[in-house]
């Protein structure tokens, strides 16, 4: 039986790189990037909020691509990857909405701003992906569960750009937008800090993704080993330890 290593490869280096990049990014954001003129220190939340939003959206789309791979190769590992990517993106999405609201309250005076197309689109996408897990776990057959989840991930991945286009089109009628808000007019120091923070959050995402995958992999392997122990003929085990009862009683391990 082939067994994968229990730890994801390079997890340690990846974690260290993540910690260093994030620390550097936040350091740059607070000590190097200039204070924004009319928003003051609250604008610093931008260095968390926007990178998280970008990474979450990329995670959703990546989940869709992995789902395509799953349906093409029929390899369950791709479904697991897609599931973990979407799951982490939902977690990041909560962070995006919370930090966005805080930023909005501080700089516009409202918790929510409907004429901010990126924020609104993000909410719609987030609401859609919130159904991923209820859908997935209301299907009992694991094989079918993986397939249905992949179909959902693909359809939702196609939905993300369409939704952004629609919300933006709806807004343009009232507020013509020359530049996107994260766009061109950032001074160089701000842009550097922003880029480093984005890379840091992306690395954090990849680290957590690998960690989660290797944990799932480990529990899968544990389950398999346990099953093999149960299947071992008793007389083989009897030679070694006749007195001891054969390991754990048979039960379906509902670990995850």
């Amino acid at each position, binding site marked *: 039986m082939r067994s994968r290593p229990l730890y994801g490869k390079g997890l340690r280096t990846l974690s260290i790189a993540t910690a260093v990049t994030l620390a550097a990014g936040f350091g740059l954001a607070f000590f190097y990037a200039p204070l924004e003129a009319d928003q003051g220190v609250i604008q610093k939340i931008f260095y968390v909020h926007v990178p998280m939003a970008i990474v979450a959206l990329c995670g959703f789309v990546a989940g869709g691509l992995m789902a395509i791979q799953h349906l093409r190769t029929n390899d369950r590992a791709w479904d697991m990857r897609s599931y973990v990517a979407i799951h982490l993106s939902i977690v990041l999405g909560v962070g995006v909405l919370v930090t966005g609201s805080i930023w909005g309250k501080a700089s516009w005076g409202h918790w929510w701003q409907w004429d901010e197309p990126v924020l609104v689109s993000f909410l719609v996408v987030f609401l859609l992906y919130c159904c991923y897990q*209820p859908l997935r776990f209301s299907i009992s057959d694991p094989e079918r569960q993986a397939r249905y989840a992949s*179909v959902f991930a693909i359809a939702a991945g196609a939905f993300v750009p369409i939704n952004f286009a629609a919300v933006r089109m709806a807004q343009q009628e009232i507020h013509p937008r020359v530049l996107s808000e994260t766009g061109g007019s950032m001074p160089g120091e701000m842009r550097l800090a922003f880029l480093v923070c984005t890379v840091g959050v992306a690395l954090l995402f990849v680290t957590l993704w690998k960690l989660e995958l290797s944990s799932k992999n480990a529990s899968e392997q544990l389950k398999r080993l346990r099953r093999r122990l149960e299947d071992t003929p008793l007389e083989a085990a009897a030679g070694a330890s006749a007195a001891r009862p054969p390991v754990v009683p048979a039960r379906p391990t509902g670990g995850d």
Partner: protein
Amino acid sequence: MSAPGGAPPGVFGAASAILRKDLRIELRTRESVPAMALFSVGAFVLFHFGLHRDTIQGDLASGVLWVTLLFASVLGVNRLFAGEREGGALDGLLLAPIDRTAVYVAKASALFLYLVLLELVAVPAFAALMLEPGIGGAFPELVPILLLADLGLAVVGALVAGLAAEARSRDLIVPLLLLPLLVPLLIAAARATEPLLASPAGPQDLAKWLGFMALYDTVFLLVAVAVFDFLLED
């Protein structure tokens, strides 16, 4: 043992057979369309009291009409695979030597026809109950908007119905999944209808929104045809 009918039918032959079966069931039981129509009239009454308005126009009217149609379509989507499920006929359908896409095409067409029928009732009812300047001025522009929106609703609705068909809590999954997916369609349809229902007809941007709806319909039709095969395996 050979199939008595000779060669298995193509996608469209099979789809039309399934569609005719669905329409016949609908004609005999009268389950989906009357329920959707009643629901929409009921929703107009609720909006009347909820908004505390005797008549509405413009953006408000367009929003009420489209939100009602969207919610009514949820009912249709929920019932789309009901016949197969309750009769245990899905297995039989899957045993038939036909392309799975035929099932999708049939279900989407059935939903499209239901929605057209629904609108034949709901739009006049809406005009009579709530609309102030009357619906006459909205034609013929309203027709392509309705048809493109119906197509989008049918395309996405049949996919969601297939996705939820195996889920235990499918009555909850369908609206939760369908409504966010329909947001772009709602935006386009409501924005396109809005100037048509205003009493001095507002500036129109019809081409843009119709184009967007056509794009939406095409993208989701392609996605659905590509992935639907994986839903109804084994």
